[in-house]
C-alpha cells in the first residue's frame, strides 16, 4: 500500500497474490420461477490472508448473501467460492461471525456466552472439559481486551447494547478463527459507542491478524477500519470498484477528520450515489 491508488474498475486482486478467500464470478439466486430474484451476479472478490476488507454498497445489494456464501451457509448458483485453497461446499467451521443483533443467549452469563463456540468447534470441543480453567482464562482475557473486565458473570440483560456487541465480538473470536465475518456489527449502536468499538476491533485485528470481511453501510467505518474497500453495485450485486485505503495502522478517530480521509469517504459516497441512481433508473 504505497500511495492512494485511484478507484479501479475491477474487483479482483491480481491473481497469484496469496488469496485466502477467493470468490470467483459468483451468482446467487433465491427462489424459482417468477419469484426468482438474483442477489448476486458475477461477483468476484479476493481477500489476502490477514487482510481487512470492507464491502460497501447501496442497501439490498446482496452483501449479506456474500457473507453466507463465504461461510458456506449457502452455495452459489454459479461460480465458485474457495477459502484457504479449498472449495467451500459446507459450513466453514473456521469462521467467526457477528451481526447487527448481538444474539447472546439470555440464559447464559457473558463468559459462558463467549465460550459457546468452544463447545462446538473441533478441537476445542474435546478439550474443553479437561482444560476448562485455561479456556476460561482465555475468555476472560478476551473480555478484558474489549473493555468488559469483570462482566463475565453478568447476564446479557444486565449489559448495555454496546457491551452486548463487545461480548458478541468476543464470541466470534474465542476459537481464534482465521476468518472473521462481520455483518453491520455496529449499525444498531449510538455513534459514540460505535466509534469506541471501531478502536476495539482495530486493536484486536492488529494483535491477532485474522482475515476480516466487514459488510457495512457506514463509509467512515469502512475507511477507518479497512485496508481495502470493495464497492458493490445495486442488486444483483457485483463488485464494481475497489479502493485501497493508504493510511497506516493504528488509525485514530482524529484521523477520520483529516482531509485525505474525508476525501476517500467522499469518493466512496459518490460512487455509491451513482450505483443508486443506476438502480433507480433500472427499476423505473
Amino acid at each position, binding site marked *: 500500500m504505497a500511495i492512494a491508488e485511484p478507484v479501479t474498475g475491477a474487483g479482483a486482486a491480481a491473481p497469484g497474490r496469496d488469496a485466502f478467500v477467493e470468490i470467483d464470478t459468483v451468482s446467487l439466486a433465491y427462489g424459482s420461477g417468477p419469484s426468482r430474484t438474483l442477489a448476486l451476479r458475477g461477483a468476484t472478490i479476493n481477500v489476502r490472508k490477514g487482510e481487512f476488507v470492507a464491502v460497501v454498497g447501496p442497501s439490498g445489494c446482496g452483501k449479506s448473501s456474500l457473507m453466507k456464501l463465504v461461510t*458456506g451457509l449457502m452455495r452459489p448458483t454459479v461460480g465458485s467460492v474457495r477459502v484457504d485453497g479449498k472449495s467451500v461446499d459446507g459450513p*466453514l467451521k473456521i469462521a467467526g461471525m457477528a451481526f447487527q443483533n448481538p*444474539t447472546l443467549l*439470555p440464559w447464559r452469563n457473558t463468559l459462558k456466552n463467549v465460550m459457546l463456540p468452544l463447545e*462446538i*468447534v473441533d478441537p476445542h470441543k474435546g478439550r474443553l472439559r479437561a482444560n476448562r480453567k485455561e479456556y476460561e482464562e482465555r475468555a476472560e482475557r478476551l473480555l478484558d481486551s474489549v473493555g468488559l473486565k469483570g462482566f463475565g458473570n453478568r447476564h446479557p440483560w*444486565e449489559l448495555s447494547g*454496546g457491551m452486548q456487541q463487545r461480548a458478541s465480538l468476543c464470541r466470534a473470536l474465542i476459537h481464534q478463527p482465521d476468518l472473521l465475518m462481520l455483518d453491520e456489527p455496529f449499525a444498531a449502536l449510538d455513534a459514540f459507542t460505535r466509534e*469506541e468499538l471501531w478502536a476495539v476491533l482495530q486493536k484486536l485485528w492488529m494483535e491477532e491478524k485474522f482475515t476480516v470481511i466487514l459488510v457495512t453501510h457506514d463509509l467512515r467505518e469502512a475507511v477507518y477500519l479497512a485496508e481495502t474497500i470493495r464497492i458493490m453495485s445495486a442488486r444483483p450485486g457485483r463488485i464494481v470498484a475497489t479502493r485501497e485505503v493508504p493510511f497506516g495502522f493504528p488509525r485514530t478517530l482524529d484521523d477520520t477528520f483529516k482531509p485525505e480521509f474525508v476525501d476517500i469517504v467522499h469518493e466512496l459516497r459518490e460512487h455509491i450515489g451513482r450505483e443508486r441512481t443506476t438502480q433507480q433508473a433500472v427499476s423505473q
Partner: protein
Amino acid sequence: MSQIDQKIDSDASDLVLEPDAPAPSRRLVTENSAPWLIAAGTLVVWQLAVWVFSIKRFVLPAPTDIAASLWKWKEVILMHAGQTLYTTLLGFAFAVVGGMLLGVAVGYSRVMYRALYPILIAFNSVPKVAIVPILVIWFGIGTIPAVITAFMLSFFPIAVNVAAGLATVEPELEDVLRSLGASRRTILFKVGLPRSLPYFFASLKVAITLALVGSVISETIASNAGIGYLMLNASSRFDVPLVFAGLIVVAAMGVAIYAVFAAVETRTTGWAVRGQTQRFDAGGG
C-alpha cells in the same frame, strides 16, 4: 475511553439498582390483598342476596350453607379430592412427557410439522366429553378414563408451546452456530431446547388446570370416586350445598396447582422474565 466507560457503568448500575429501588409498599399491599378482598366481597353479596330474596337452598345455597356442608363432609371430600388430584397429576405427568416429545418433533422437523399439525388441530377440536364413553368401553369406569382424559386435555398446550419456543431461535444465531460446524442436533440442545423452556413452563400452569378439568369431566361421567363423582352423586340427592362445596374444592385445587407451577416457572426461567421486563421497559416490540 473513560467517558464511555462511565456511560456504560451508569447504564449497568441503573439496571442493577432497579429492583432494589424502594417499592411503593402501600400499593404492593393493596395488590396482594386485592384477590382476597374481591373473593370476600363476592361471598358477602352472595350471602346477602340469598337472605334478601330468600332463595331456596336447593336452588342457590348461601355461602354459610356451603361452608357447613364442607365441614360436615370433610373426610369424604378429602378422600374424593385425593382421587381427583391423583388422576389429574398422573394424566398431567403423561402430558408433560408426551407434549414435550411431540412439541420437539413438530418444532424440529418440518416434515413432522406438516404431517402432525393438522391431526393435532383436529384432535384438539374434538370435545373430550365425547371420548369418555369410548374410554369406558375400553377400560371400564374409574381411574384410567380419568387419567386419559386429563392427558388428552393437557398435552396440547404443552406441545404447541414447546414447538413455538423452538421456532423462535434467531436465524442469525443459527448462522453463527452452523458456520462453526454445529449440527442441527447440537443447535437443538444448545439453543432450541433452552430457548423453549420458558414457553414450556408457561404452558405447564395452563396444562395442569386443564388436566384437572379433564379428570373432573371423566369422573362426572364414569367413575365411583373423585370430586366429579361426589358432585354428581350429591346433585342426584338434591344436596345442592354439597355440589357447591365440590365446585369450591375443584376451584381451590385449580388455584393451588396453578400457583405451584407458576412458582416453578419463575424459579426455573427467571432469565426469560427479566429479559421480557426489559424489553417492555425499552418500549420495543
